[in-house]
């Protein structure tokens, strides 16, 4: 990583907790929630950045994992709240670590078959088949009445984390930010590792990778599953943040937004997802405060990014990536 990129990354990482802290001191709870929203969306985008940024896999279905994580939190909490056992005699829970574990494992388990089928295709077919799988889960959530169907599912009390008062906005922010830091550390190690080298090679030139004796398929499959797991964790936290899950977390619009977060920040860059999420939430908040039609202007901004700033915010701040 170039010194400039390092500086930009550290600055972004310092800015978010600083903003949340300032909001706490000023008593502006709303802005703490906004900072938490940035951190959760950034975490989801860190997940996608593994597949999209490092592996070049344009998954247009990552909302599936975001939503599944959300529903894991919603369903477990609802069953615990109603004291109803789930299937197979398992009980619901309001323990956030347990919920996170379920969300991560569930997303890994679902991503495996999806990846096995989708990664046999490439190009537009891959984009479309990942979209189709996400739609499958979306329509299932809509037409399955047990957990709210189209109306979604409320979580009445924010789930618990040992030693953290999760109901307090700032405590919850700290928890989410810590998980974001952990995910960023994981991404950083992953990129620098043997696996990361193979994954980036599969993006640049899969034919070359195969000629070296490494099967691009298995590398991509592992990346896809890991990517889904991280995004799923973010989904569980997002549900807890809003105390609400609905099929909109699974919608194709959400998949599009996750891609937007990664590109807006700079794909394949460590701090890209954080930069993207911060920009996105800022647009949503600032433009949304000025006009109800803020998405119109978001569209124009995205067009400008595609044509003028392909490296995203990190690309503008720190130039092109360096691969050692």
């Amino acid at each position: 990583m170039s010194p400039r990129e390092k500086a930009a990354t550290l600055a972004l990482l310092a800015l978010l907790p600083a903003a949340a802290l300032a909001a706490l001191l000023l008593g502006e709870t709303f802005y703490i929630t906004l900072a938490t929203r940035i951190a959760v969306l950034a975490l989801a985008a860190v997940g996608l950045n593994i597949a999209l940024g490092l592996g070049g896999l344009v998954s247009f279905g990552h909302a599936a994992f975001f939503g599944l994580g959300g529903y894991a939190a919603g369903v477990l909490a609802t069953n615990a709240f109603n004291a109803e056992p789930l299937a197979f005699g398992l009980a619901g829970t309001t323990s956030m670590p347990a919920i996170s574990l379920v969300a991560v494992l569930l997303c890994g388990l679902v991503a495996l078959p999806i990846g096995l089928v989708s990664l046999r295709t490439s190009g537009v077919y891959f984009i479309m088949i990942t979209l189709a799988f996400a739609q499958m889960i979306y329509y299932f959530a809509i037409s399955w009445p047990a957990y709210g169907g189209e109306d979604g599912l409320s979580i009445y009390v924010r789930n618990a984390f040992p030693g953290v008062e999760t109901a307090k906005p700032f405590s919850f922010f700290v928890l989410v930010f810590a998980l974001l830091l952990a995910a960023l550390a994981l991404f950083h190690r992953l990129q620098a590792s043997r696996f990361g080298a193979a994954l980036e090679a599969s993006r640049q030139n899969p034919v070359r990778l195969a000629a070296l004796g490494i099967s691009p398929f298995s590398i991509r499959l592992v990346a896809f599953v890991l990517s889904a797991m991280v995004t799923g964790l973010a989904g569980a936290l997002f549900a807890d943040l809003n105390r609400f899950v609905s099929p909109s977390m699974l919608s194709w619009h959400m998949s599009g937004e996750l891609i937007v977060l990664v590109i807006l920040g700079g794909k394949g860059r460590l701090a890209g997802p954080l930069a993207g999420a911060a920009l996105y939430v800022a647009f949503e908040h600032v433009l949304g405060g000025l006009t109800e039609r803020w998405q119109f202007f978001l569209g124009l901004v995205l067009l400008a990014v595609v044509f003028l700033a392909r490296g995203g915010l990190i690309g503008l701040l720190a130039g092109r990536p360096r691969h050692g």
Partner: protein
Amino acid sequence: MAEPVLAVDRLEKAFGALKATNGVSLDLRPGEIHALIGPNGAGKSTLINQIAGALAPDAGTIRFLGRDVTALSTAARARLGLARTFQVSSLLPDFSALRNIMLAAQARQGSSLRFLRPVLSDRTLTEPAMAILARVGLTARADVPAAELSHGERRQLEIAVALAMQPKAFLLDEPMAGMGPEGSKTLTAFLDGLRQEAPILLVEHDMDAVFALADRVSVLVYGQVIASGSVAEIRSDPEVRRAYLGDAA
């Protein structure tokens, strides 16, 4: 006679009505350079792609190190020790020259499913890669992304990557292409020594290089091997002269 390292037996491949590979049999023995020549469109690239595993033949077998590899993927053949270079350089453009070679060393060592240890401080990768860069004379360019190397340097890097795989056989697809006379001469000398490490199946248009290097030459025309033998035999073969040079001999 030593057991061949690579043996291609009655290989067939058709694209529609065109028989690009029409019953080709050839082998590669330890320590030799076996050159495969033929006019444009003779089916050399199609043949190399089948041997490397990028194309599936319609019929016939490919044996490598005594094992039938016809049904194996490109990656599986590479893991057994078959290293190929490409006619048009096929590198990792964003990675530096060093990292291109390190990845080959990594592939040879086996596991790419290691997630935490950084490669750049892994001396089991950097040291052999630096040694190979030195061998092909690219040490000064170690940190330059492959995309920014000159054409000749990319050809060298392509060979270096194959070296790092420590293969049991090389498949070199026109390594001299676009090298210029000076570069070709250097590369010829380099390949001359390389046959001691592993035998080379060499597809090449540069006849000076072929005649200087080859222990055996096979001539491919319209998907068929029309002649196979020593350089001298091939030079005097009337069929070859007719098909290849258009001579009315």
